[in-house]
Every structure is written in structure tokens, then in C-alpha cells.
């Protein structure tokens, strides 16, 4: 069955079992590998993408649920890595192994879009992704920095 998808503004038609998790369609059929697989049970957030602007863990979403909706992956943030969240991440040298960071960035961006200046407590409740290297200390600093950069950009 052909499923029509929009990923980072481009349209795709993919022939897959409609129950295939969106993650695998993004990684294999669409061919964008920035979105990662780690637990497959919606626990870790490595596979976080935005569906119509809402963050979700794509390892547990059947591709058919994304039909006709707009998917944004880490590759859709910017071409050169100059989105404010990415700039903040580089400034604080956040990633260690980096494997969780696509998901971490997508989750953080979703938070910042909803709440342009989150407190530490709000970060604690909203950011539930796992980073096994434990870059949390820098993630927090970078979220605050990204909030500043995003506000300057809008001003």
C-alpha cells in the first residue's frame, strides 16, 4: 500500500505495511538517518520527530498515522546547522557520543516553541529523553541559551 508523507517539506510516496513504525520509514524508505533507534518502546526519545509541530516518539507511531501530516526531523531544522538550538548546542559542546542528540534537540525545540523561556522545573518535566552519556548538564544550559537566541532572532 502506498502511503503519502511529507517530510521536511518534501513529499514522498512509500510502499510499506501501514503498521510499520514511522521511525523505520524515515530511516529506511525516506533515507534520513539522523533520527535514531534505541529502545523501540517510546522510553528514550532518540527517535523524536515533530508531527505537525508536535513532538512524538516515532518508534511507536505507525506510518499510517502520519499520512497527510507534516513530519519534521533533525535534518529539517537547518541545512547548515545554524538553527538557534543547534548553535546553542555547539556553543556548549553538548554532545558526547551524540547518539541521543537528534532526539534531544527535537524535544528541546518543541519545548521552546511552546514555552519560549522555560524554567529549570519546566525543563525537568518536559525533557524526558535518555542520554546515557549524561550530557544533561550541558543540555540544560544549551536550552536556556537557545531560548535567548530564539528571542533575539524574533526581536
Amino acid at each position, binding site marked *: 500500500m*502506498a502511503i503519502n508523507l511529507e517530510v521536511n517539506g*518534501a*513529499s*514522498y*510516496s512509500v*510502499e*510499506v*505495511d501501514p503498521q*510499520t*513504525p514511522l521511525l523505520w520509514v524515515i*530511516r*529506511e*524508505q525516506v*533515507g*534520513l*538517518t*539522523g*533520527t*535514531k*533507534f*534505541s*529502545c*523501540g*518502546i517510546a*522510553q528514550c526519545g*532518540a527517535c523524536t520527530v515533530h508531527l505537525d509541530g508536535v513532538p512524538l516518539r516515532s518508534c511507536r507511531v505507525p506510518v499510517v498515522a502520519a499520512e497527510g501530516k507534516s513530519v519534521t*526531523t*533533525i*535534518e529539517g*531544522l*537547518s541545512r547548515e*546547522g545554524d538553527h538557534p538550538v*543547534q548553535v546553542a*548546542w*555547539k556553543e556548549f*559542546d*553538548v*554532545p*558526547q*557520543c*551524540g*547518539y*541521543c*542528540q*537528534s532526539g534531544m*534537540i527535537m524535544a528541546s525545540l518543541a519545548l521552546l516553541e511552546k514555552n519560549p523561556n522555560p524554567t529549570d522545573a519546566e*525543563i*525537568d518535566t518536559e*525533557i524526558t*529523553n*535518555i*542520554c*546515557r552519556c*549524561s*550530557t*544533561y*548538564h*550541558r*543540555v*540544560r544550559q544549551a536550552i536556556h541559551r537557545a531560548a535567548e537566541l530564539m528571542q533575539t532572532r524574533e526581536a
Partner: protein
Amino acid sequence: MSKPNSKVSQKNSATIDRREFLTTTGLATGAFVLGFWVPPKTADAAIIAGAPWYEEPEVQEINAWIVIDPDDMVTIRIAQTELGQGVWTSNAMMVCEELQCDWSKVQPQYASANRDARESAPEWTLDVMGDGAFDPIGGGEPLFRGREPVRGIPDSLYRRMRTNEASSVRDGRYYLQLAGAEVRERLLLAAAGQWGVPASELTAKDSVITHQQSSRTTTYGQVAYLATETPHPNPETINIKPPSEWTLMGKEQNNLDVPAKVTGELVYGIDVRMPGMKWAAVRACPVYGGDVKSYDFDAVRDQPGVQSAQQLPIPDPSLLRGRQFSGAVAVVADSWYQAKTALDQMPIEWDIPPQSATSNTADMHQELMDAMDQPGTVRVDEGNVDAATVSADKIVEATYSTPYLPRARMEPGNATALVTDGRVDIWLGDQSPQETRRSASVITGIPEENVYIHLCHLGGGFGRNGNGPQAEQTIMIANANRGTPIHLLWTREEDFVGTTYRAMGVARLRAGLDADGWPVALEVRTGMQEDGFGPTSSFNDTSRYYVPNYRFTNHMTQFHIPCGTRRGVGQAAHEFYRETFIDELARTAGKDPYLYRRELIARTDLPHRDDMIRALDMVAEMSDWGSPLPEGKARAIALEEKGAEASGTATISAMVHTVSVSREGVVRLDRVDVALDQGFSLINPLSVKKQLEGQIVWFYNDAMHQANTVLNGRIVENNFDRFSVSRIKEDPPEINIQFFETGHWMRGMGHDRATSVQSGIGDAIFQITGKRFRDLPFSQHDLSWG
């Protein structure tokens, strides 16, 4: 990138185009085959941007570490694997420091493990200094000498390609600096020859060579081709810079691969795509040592995309450092999800060794406890422990235990392999490519010289990326499907089966105290399975805290759970035992745990004694030790050292952990103060800070949350729902790090720091709730109070 608006077909039957492989390049040093995959350039191509393996540059190398392009871009080959510890950057810094090239024009590239099988190390890399404490240039005694393989370090081109024991800087710095210096000298000789002036009149800085007298300049890029043909007449006379002359090293440098990690373009093993590639999902018998009795492929063979199924024998333990994993079944399909779905539905029966089929944590723990009552192996016996204990004023005894622990790195085990009749190519993240090279050769019968390992960054390592059989399984499948690239990927659950564990451990510590509360005798017994990695760690070297009578015995059992080099190895558990016990002694003696430690270190004659005292004093001051805290909050201090018993390399730190426990029993690590010995100098202090931040939370998880239990022979907690990992809300809000200079080289940073979080939280819980817990993780206990 994929084409927008295109039909993406699921059946991809493209075959490998041999032109996609660069097979030979003629170099001055002789012809050899380079195995770097040249990515296809068509629109349907694999995702390759940011791949850490590159096309082999057209420009000739100057030595095996360095290639300089005409535009001054310097490629530096890295023989260790980047897994988040920053080696990609710190190794490049060591080369660049001596090469004196422009740091903004440096690109790291993985060294070829294939060339390593074909070429020998240059003479000048052989007597590699390193283990001495007091020679700022390189250390006194060589770490490994000549061509003899020492400590598993061969004399092949890149010597140690392993990434373990936090040793990349310690073992590599001397010859990496030399590699940079050798090329710098040859560039100078080349420019001198061109200008007809003595090389001694030239200076080099930021890739520019200057002849002051004649005001002539040239760049590295312009003379690089000449340097390739200009050997150094006496490479053994080249010296490396002492830390006082460093300009790049010792200063914080952002990691070179971070930009590719924030755009998603960095290629990990899991991201490797090959034309015509098939996917494999694997299920191994969940009881180690078990095998496949039967499986029914007919039940799933007609499912979409499914190609084949295959039984994989128990991997030869000699390829996996003696560890026994399980037999497995693989399903190969057009996509991974199809392979995994079919495997989930395929009936499989296991053959489980009866002695393992009923084993469980409680019995295993009891067996370890019983072992401690047996005589055991006496490792250290100083003075007369029994006599001193009998005459002691007071006896304190405590028994501790720690569970099995996995690495649970974020990237599940995977590898891609293509076996053809004369050659093996493997793409994977790997902390020991030299061993994988051998596995590939043994499994396929193809000589190691024809095995090409294309290293990728790892999505976390934490100890030889698991020591599990992901590469071996992949090669077995690819060997049975010659000509077809096979990408194997484990589910998270399978990753918990394919990994090794830090062994479960127990310890009994017994001290006699004199009337003033100072220890006069200490007996340490530890129990761990024989292959447990570090059953004697640290207690074997020193009691650390002064005691005139000291005995250490260890007691072994045999269990079927395979153990490996998890971050911190046995020492991490032993630090929990020892530092907790010292807190218990201090409290029994009614003394301040900081001053108690300080005095007991001061009484020793350990070579690094003064540095340990300095660490304690510094962290006490940083943390405002002794100042009042509100109810429900407490501070705990601990010392961490590796190597302090000898006069060689060492790493020393002291930490104060400020912890709060709510009345409901919710623990929070509020603040961590760290005083860390930096030796003569750190290479990249930024990476060291990041490693510390990461290890604090790593051992927080060990202290609070993590344990693997065994039921009916299998590991129970096999995904992040049952195996818990802390999130950002548990990260300590305040981490203060200060370094202090010492007169020795540092031993390493990546794996044994912040073990004190364990004893620190334990002692804070004791101070706040009055309850002393001696088994980890603490979250299994009721921590409420008041």
C-alpha cells in the same frame, strides 16, 4: 538526500558496483590495498554525509598519521574510536601541537585497521615512553618497548587500536606527538632544500614556514609533496615538546565532530547503507551458553520482504576473550522491520544448559556470600591482621553488595558486512578493531590482510562496546550470503543479551580500631565470579588508608553470565565498599570523615600522598565543608585514586557530594564539587569536564537505580522500561570542577572518576535518615524518614 516526490521502492536489488571501492593506490611506501568505501554519487545513494570513513585522499600521506592537501587542509588519522570521550579531537590535538599546523584546518579520519594488518610500526614509535611520573617530556619507563607485543599492544602500524581503560591519551601521546614532530621536521627539510638554506634557520607556525633572514614564506600545503619524498635522516633524534611549550594542548577546544552531531549527519554504524543491502534481525538464546534446538522458518517465509533464515552457532569463545554467548537465529529481509517482525513470529525452541536454566540472583548472591566464608586467595597480607584485631579496642564489620550492571549504550549493537570470495568489508563502531579483524578472518577463512574495517563513531561505548558478538554474528550471516551486504541490528532487548556485564559482587570489610578510633587492622574479602573483570582491583594495590596490618583475600565463583570491561570495571564496586567503610569507621570513631581520611592518608608513605591530601583539602574548601546545611541535606566526601600506590602515572580526585533526601525518601544529588589532579597538564580540559559530568550521573545511576537480576538463567531487565536510566530532572544542578597541577602524568579520565557518588549518597542517606544501606541500588530501600 532522497529525491522528493519519488516512489521509493522497497525491493532494492542493485548489486555492488566494484567501482564503488577504491582498491589500490600506489604509495611510495609500497602498494597496499585501502579499504575506504567511496560512496555512490547517484540520487538513490546511501546517506553518507558526515561519514567518519572517507574516500582515500588523492594526496599522498607524509607519514601514516598525516596527509596535507595543497590547500593546507591536514588530515589526521585516529587509531582509537570516538564514542563520546573526545578522542577524535584530543588525538588530533596531540599531532597538531607538534606539527604546528593551523588547527582550524584539521580533519580527523579513522586509521585503517587493514593497513595495520599489513604494515609494521615505524622504528621511531617503538620505545614509547609513558609510565614515568616525573619526566614532563614523556615519562620515564617505556610503556611498551621495541617490537614485542606488550599488554596486547602489537608492533603493527598503529600499535594500539583499542579504545579502553581510558588509555588513549596515556598510551598514545608520546608517539602521536612524535608523528606530528616527524612530519614538521620533514616539511622544514623540504622547504630548506627548496630554498637552499639550512633547516635550522626555518620556523614553522600555523602551517606557515618562514625563513626570517630572507623574509621568505611558504605553506605546508605547498611543500607537502616534497616532504613525502624527504625522509628524516635521524628520526630517533626528534624530541617532543614538554607541557611548558604547548600552545594548543592544555586549552579547551570544542570537539571537532560536534557540528555533525547536531545536524544528524554523522554516520554511526546503524546508519550505514549499501546498495543491495539486506537487513538481519537476530535472536539469541536468552540463557548464555544455550543453543537453538529448532526453528520453523516455514511459518514466516512468505511474509513480505523475508529472504532467508539461518542458525548461528555459539560464537567461538576464543574470538570473544573466552566469553560464552549463545546460539541464535537470524532472519534476513529487505528491511529491518520486516526481518524483526518475522523473527518475532517465528517459533524457536531453545536448548538450555540445565545448570543455568534455574539460576537466579538470590541463589547466586548466596553463593558469593558462602564463597567469602571459604579460605579464598590471599592477595595481600601485611603485618598480623588476626592478632591486631583481637587486641583492638573496637571491631567494625560490614558486608556490601553490588549487582550485575550493563553498559546499555544508546546505540544498539549492529554491524554491516560484505563478504566476497577474497575479501571482507565491515562497517561498524568498534572499540577493538584488531580483534574484529581476526574474528572476520577466522570465520570466513579470508586472511586478515584482506579484511577491511571501516570504523564509525559509536553511540556510546562504556567499555569495549559491550564485548558482545555483534560483529561475529554479522560476519557469519554475510559469509553465508557472499556478495550481499548484510546489516545486522539488535533490538534493545537483544542488546541486553549480546552484552557483557560488570559482575555481581560482595565484600566483607572488618577493621579493628584503637581507643582513638584509628584502624590497627583491616581485613577485606571480596567475592566475584572468576572472569569478573577486576575481582582484585584496587584492594590489591593498596589499602589506600593507613593501617599497619592489612589482608586482602578474594573469593571466586563461577556463573554463566559473561562479564566484561564495563566503565570502571571492578574498581567501581570496590570504591563503593572501601569509601563507605571509611565513612562507617569515621562515624564509629566520632571523627569528621574529611579529617579522618586526611589523617589516614598523611600516615601512609604512598608516592602520591601529598597529591591526595591536596585533593581532599581543595574539595573541602570548594564545598564549604562543615558549614551548616538545612534539615534533610548532608554532605559526604570521598577520595578517588588510580595508581597512587606506585610512582608512575596516576589519577587522583576528591569529591564532595551534597545530597538531599525528602521525608518521603526522594533522593536528590544537589551539588558535586570536584578537585581533580591534572598531572603536568590535560590535553583537552573541555573533554575532561564533560567526562566528569557524565561519570557523575553514570555512578548516580549505579547508586540509585540500576541493577540487572537473573531469573531462570536470563537477564530480567532488558529495556528502558524495567532498566531505569535517570533523566535530566535528576541531573545535579550544580557541578563545580577545579583542576590542580601535579608532578606526574595522568593515567586517564574516561572510566573511574565519580565512583564516589555511590558512597557519597549512601553516607548522606545515613546522616539524614539514620539508615545505613550497604547494597546497591539504594532505590530498592525505603529511604523515608522523620
